[in-house]
């Protein structure tokens, strides 16, 4: 089956990989394309059930993509099981959207990328933009026929970083995408999320602080390429050839920044450290820095 076309929107065309993003207008036109599956991935596990884009299936970051025992993502078999049950085939174009500036949608897309799902895209602006444009929403849960998604081994070497790799990476570019209060060490958790804290406050030595949501405009869409370059290249001093590690608290906010650097700005070596501050900050004898950048 032919893959649905890419969105030719002018803003998207400026990005390094414009095929990784679609606008709400494009999705409105293409959501019934035969080989396209819309996926909603939210922080709030019930939000999908209050209404979603017609035809969309829910993928929950915690219940579907995590292994509850090993603090890891599902393995190839687990991912194949989830995809097959949701009716997503390996050659499907998957358009992912969600709440909070696509925070959890970007996280889901990053996990899809660990399994190299060939065509996974984000809906620019996410759920809030679609709903704000009073486009159709429904509570009807689609029944997609199960597929036979192949078992693909998870690739943890390309876009994922582990603790010891980050330790060896010190001195090279690191972006901490948490709030300034978490970065300085003043807060042991994200504002309003005290249950997911660490025993020490601060950041990984040498990290620059660029809170993730600065990549999003007021309406939740990604900022235009020139503004993103000013932020990451100008302000944070990165360059596209850099070997970059991004992190936050558990790797979800930094998935958003990983998406920006990789797909919007075309950086070729960006890894997300999903252990992030809940691992680093709690680990015995790992070096940290305190204070503002």
């Amino acid at each position, binding site marked *: 089956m032919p893959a649905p076309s890419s969105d030719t929107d002018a803003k998207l065309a400026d990005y390094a990989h414009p095929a990784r993003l679609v606008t709400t207008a494009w999705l409105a036109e293409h959501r019934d394309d035969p080989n396209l599956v819309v996926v909603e991935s939210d*922080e*709030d*596990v*019930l*939000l999908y*059930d*209050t209404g979603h884009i017609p035809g969309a299936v829910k993928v929950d970051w*915690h*219940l579907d993509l995590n292994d509850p025992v090993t603090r890891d993502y599902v393995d190839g078999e687990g991912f194949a099981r989830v995809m097959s049950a949701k009716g997503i085939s390996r050659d499907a174009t998957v358009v992912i959207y969600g*709440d909070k500036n696509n925070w959890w949608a970007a996280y889901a897309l990053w996990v899809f990328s660990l399994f190299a799902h060939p065509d996974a895209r984000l809906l620019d602006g996410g759920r809030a933009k679609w709903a704000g444009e009073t486009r159709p929403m429904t509570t009807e849960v689609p029944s997609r026929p199960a597929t036979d998604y192949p078992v693909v081994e998870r690739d943890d070497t390309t876009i994922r970083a582990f603790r010891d790799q980050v330790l060896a990476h010190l001195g090279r570019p690191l972006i901490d995408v948490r709030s300034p209060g978490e970065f300085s060490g003043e807060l042991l958790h994200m*504002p*309003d*999320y*005290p*249950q*997911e804290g660490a025993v020490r406050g601060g950041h990984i030595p040498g990290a620059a602080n660029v809170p993730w949501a600065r990549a999003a405009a007021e309406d939740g869409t990604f900022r235009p390429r020139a503004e993103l370059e000013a932020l990451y290249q100008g302000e944070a001093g990165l360059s596209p050839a850099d070997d970059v590690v991004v992190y936050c608290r558990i790797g979800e906010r930094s998935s958003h920044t990983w998406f920006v650097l990789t797909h919007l700005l075309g950086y070729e070596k960006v890894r997300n450290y999903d252990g992030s501050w809940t691992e680093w900050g709690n680990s015995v004898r790992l070096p940290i820095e305190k204070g503002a950048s």
Partner: protein
Amino acid sequence: MSTLPASLADIVEDFTAVGPKDRLQLLLEMSQQLPPLPDRYAGHRESMEQVPECQTPLFLAVEVDDGGGVHLFFDAPPEAPTTRGFAGILREGLDGAGVEDVLAVPEDFYLGLGLGEAVSPLRLRGMAAMLARIKRQVRERDRQASSPR
């Protein structure tokens, strides 16, 4: 054996009687049944207490009437249905119960709802925080009511 007020015990029973998928549906219904704030609180968040442990801002207020009955008021946005659902459970389960009954609710009663599997344990902690804050407010109100004028 259970120390839960009857309405809360009923809710726990409803949740445990069904599988994880239907539990989510029940939680969604609880979120939809959460009543709007009365005029004296609507638009007056400064008179309510924030529960920062919830993933989305939630505000609550507690009143104790002359007969010793506890009344609960919650404010959470529609885009936070899980938090609203937790509030809905506490509202329907505890509103109208006596001070002693509310204070006797075990801190971990929510584990009995079987929601850990359906919404993940991490998300459940907001519920414990709401209950703790409700109890603290009930103690304060109760002390005020019984102190001589």
